[in-house]
């Protein structure tokens, strides 16, 4: 009996000690939207952005996604997104809007021309999200649509 108990405890400890992968594979396909400037509503007029600003925002967005708990939760198989972005005017300054949706193998939409429609209730958690990058390069309003519980935001990016 004692032996059985000892063995069970050992198995429990080992199984508890077993870790999942240390990293989360994250694939991002970027699309700079250059279609209809009013595709997202008349109040959101698309405007061009210069490369230094877009570069800064893309890098910040990448970091925000890497650190987002929703993404982190998918360590086993990782996540792959198509990410569409465009510049627009907001509160007197230019922002970049990011819209992400999970990439599927039959996803042949040209997101450079077509606006990305976000599924409010995606099949898989974290597959639909949006965020914006402010004039100063900070990511704000990162929202995973259809998340269980509260919308998760990236606090350390100054939101």
């Amino acid at each position, binding site marked *: 009996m004692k032996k059985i108990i000892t063995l069970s405890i050992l198995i429990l400890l080992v199984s508890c000690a077993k870790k999942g992968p240390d*990293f989360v*594979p*994250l694939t991002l396909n970027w699309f700079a939207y250059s279609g209809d400037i009013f595709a997202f509503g008349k109040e959101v007029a698309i405007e061009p952005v210069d490369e230094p600003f877009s570069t800064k925002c893309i890098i910040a967005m*990448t970091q925000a996604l890497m650190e987002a708990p929703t993404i982190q939760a998918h360590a086993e198989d990782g996540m792959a997104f198509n990410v569409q972005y465009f510049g627009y005017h907001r509160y007197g300054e230019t922002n970049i809007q990011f819209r992400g949706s999970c990439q599927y193998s039959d996803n042949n939409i040209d997101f450079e021309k077509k606006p990305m429609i976000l599924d409010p209730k995606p099949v898989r958690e974290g597959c639909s999200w949006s965020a914006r990058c402010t004039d100063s390069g900070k990511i704000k309003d990162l929202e995973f649509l259809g998340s269980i519980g509260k919308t998760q935001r990236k606090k350390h990016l100054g939101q």
Partner: protein
Amino acid sequence: MKTLLLKIAFLFRINILIFALLSLTIVAILAYRQGMDSIYTINPATYPYIVALTDSVDGGNSVINMIRTDSSIIMDYELREGYAYPYASIQIYLGDGKTHGKDLSAYDSVFLWIKPRGEGSVRLYLRGWDSTISKIDNQASLKFNELEFFPLEETYPAVFVPSEFRVAGWWVSQNNVSAHKARVDISNIPLIEIQTGTGAPLGYGTLEIMGIRFKGKIISQLSLTTGLVAIWFVTFFIILIIRFFDYSKERAANRKKREELEKNLKALEIEKADFEKSSKEDPLTGCLNRAGFSSILTREQERLNKNGSPLSYIILDIDRFKDVNDTFGHSVGDEVLVNLSKLVQSRIRNTDALVRWGGEEFVVLCSDTPLQNAQFLAEKLRQNIENTELISQRKVTCSFGVAEMIPGEDSKKLFERADKALYASKQGGRNRVTSASYKKH
């Protein structure tokens, strides 16, 4: 043989020069002693310019008769009362006999073959022209460089040296000659006189003169010595010049040798560097190979561990490369590799390192680059590759895996992570970038 001798001669030229100089000196001294004589002989038997005279020119009554024989002249004379100092003499004219005579100063001895009949002295005068004292057409003004001797007491011939002559005191006072000009000077002798001596007795007498000879050296001892010394000086000067040129030549040769050595050293260093470089380079693409990569990696790891400077890995793998090789051949495959490496090299920063990791696999080591920045760089590379015609036959794309190193981590673990991210890109459809972001525990 001739060349060899010339070479030896050149080699020992200074020694030869000194030897020649010594030999010349010895030969010159010996020659001077044994020879190099300058002789001037007057043979009265044949010499035309001889005149006999007595004190009758001064108002005396003495008479003389000069007879030439085959070998001499004989002065038969009778000294009579009349002149205070009766005399008889012969005069031998040299040169023009007036102002331009013979220079006898080069001679160091005078030989006189003279036979008197009876005792008594004989005076030998070397009459010199001194332009500051003598007057033309006044024979009495010619300087009396005199020597009085007793022939019977002398050797035969009688031998005298110039220093035994003196200027006649009575002539000095008669002509008011200053002490400075009253010294013997036989450099211009237009007249030699052989006269009966002081206090010669009245009556008959005879003097037979067989010859007069002046003997000296072609050059004076002083000239010889001066000449030899000058030659020695010149020779040593030449030796100095030779040594100087030898030294300059040696210096130039040494400098040339040194330069050549430095040149060879430089070439060797370049060769060494080239060899080192080539041993760290992939021969096809010119990228670093794994050997060249390891030292860079070590350095960057140290920077990460010391300063916390982030270090990221990008692995890129050519999509369906085997297919390219199988369809178009390995030369086209090589073309893809070369063009791809050139493209990537042109897009990465100077601080990044491109390595050919395997057949169609490359690694970009991004120094001081966090993961999100490396992801962005990888995405840019992906787009560039997709939009560039690496080969004309088909479009070529790459899949990317990106990972960031943890401080203290083994590089193998980093590589595994990046490799898994690459695998995810391949699995996800290729031509995409997957990063291995950290999982927070």
